[in-house]
């Protein structure tokens, strides 16, 4: 009996007809999941790891202190920092030059995590296709400009900040802690 059933199914192409019914169902209840990309874009999450940027404080001074930790953390040697003293203030340092070779970046975000002063941020920009590879070799001014246009509000959201940085914020104590 069972054999007869399978035989009947195979000569009537039953399985194929089931498949064809499924495709027809999709045709009749046509609901595309595609977005017409250049015309319509999806909203990206806040934690999206896009183009890297250098950030400033609210008063417009650079956050970066030229500590080289990002350079040390970077697995693909994207970052090159030339650190130097702030003229006239021997105790303070800053990044005199700061280069990122974005052709090699793999957007892991380790540099952002490594930064002790939150001077680096990952923006939600991703449309960085260029005709010339050299245009992806960014200097400090360009990275600051990306940060300026992507972070109109300078501070990261408090719960996303590193605890060492967020600790000094007055709101930090009222923030619900993550169960760990």
């Amino acid at each position: 009996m069972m054999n007869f059933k399978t035989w009947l199914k195979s000569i009537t192409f039953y399985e194929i007809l089931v498949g064809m019914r499924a495709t027809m169902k999709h045709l009749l209840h046509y609901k595309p999941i595609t977005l017409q990309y250049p015309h319509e874009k999806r909203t990206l999450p806040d934690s999206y790891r896009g183009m890297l940027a250098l950030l400033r404080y609210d008063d417009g001074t650079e956050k970066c202190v030229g500590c080289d930790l990002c350079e040390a953390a970077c697995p693909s040697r994207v970052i090159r920092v030339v650190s130097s003293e702030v003229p006239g203030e021997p105790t303070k340092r800053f990044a005199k030059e700061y280069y990122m070779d974005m052709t090699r970046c793999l957007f892991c975000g380790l540099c952002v995590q490594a930064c002790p002063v939150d001077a680096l941020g990952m923006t939600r920009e991703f449309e960085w296709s260029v005709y010339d590879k050299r245009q992806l070799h960014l200097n400090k001014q360009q990275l600051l400009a990306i940060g300026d246009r992507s972070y109109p509000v300078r501070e990261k959201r408090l719960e996303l900040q590193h605890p060492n940085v967020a600790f000094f914020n007055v709101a930090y104590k009222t923030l619900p802690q993550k169960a760990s």
Partner: protein
Amino acid sequence: MTEIGLRAVISLAQIAAVMGVVMLTVMILTLAERKVLGWMQDRMGPMEVGPYGILQPIADGLKLFFKEDIVPAGANKFLFSLAPILALVPALIGFAVIPFGPNDTIEVFGLQIKPFIVSDINIGILYILAFTSIGAYGIILGGWASNSKYSLLGGLRSAAQIISYELNVGLAIVGVILLSGSLSLVKITEAQSGWFWNWFVIALPFPQIFAFVVYVISSVAETNRLPFDLPEAESELVAGFFTEYSGMRFAFFFIAEYANMILVSCIAAILFLGGWNAPAPFLQFNGSLANLAWLSGIFWFTVKVYFFLFLFFWIRATLPRLRYDQLMRFGWKVMLPIALANILITSIAAYLFPR
């Protein structure tokens, strides 16, 4: 002399009209295939060129026309150039015997011509079988002349596949020929006039439903369409026999494939679904409108052909590709016995119940 000249002019005009319709259908098909496949897979298909992407075929044609024409190093130049033509010409030449509408004759300048068929020869179906077999040469030679392993493998597969399935096509048709008693496509269609139960697919004394299934499956295989697209299997052979082709030569192969699709759909519609005949006599123009009967004839023929073309897309959206041994086993061990048994039973039925 003037009569021959006039006939030549009229024939050329008919050929031009048929070619125009076929090319237009190819253009529609390239778009329709991508759209239907997209809809079935929850995508949109081409959307950029023109409203809802309806101008995409024109953009594709322009792109192919202006592309660089590359002949790979080590290729046999003569055969490499000949192969696309050898693939395209047999695909288009088959339309010469396809009746697109009723078998009316009209008088033009004192000459009797049939407007809806280029040439009503009495061995129409044989002629089409003969010429579609030549199309395989284009594919095999194109695969061989490219001097590429992918092309050669595609060509070889195509040779084996077309030989295996050509046989089934031929045998599936025999049942219809036995019932209609003619090889002419016009006579075969006329034998199915009246109600839809006169169509050979369900006509008594012996319905050709098995032959119909065999024919449809074999014709999918013969045109190298999914799930039988082993000659051009994208995931294994890059693009099979036209891996090395670009520009207009590629376009020739492409048009040939779609023209072949239209051709086998036309034959399926004529042989099994009654060609230009309406499903019921009252569904075509009758009585006072009998002069317009050709309009409904063409309409029903188009509907049937497009049904088959849609079936091609539908199957493509549903099924994955067969393995090579599955393809051969299916062709020789399943389809061939069914086709042979169909001939046997049909000939007995045709002998016992002569029409």
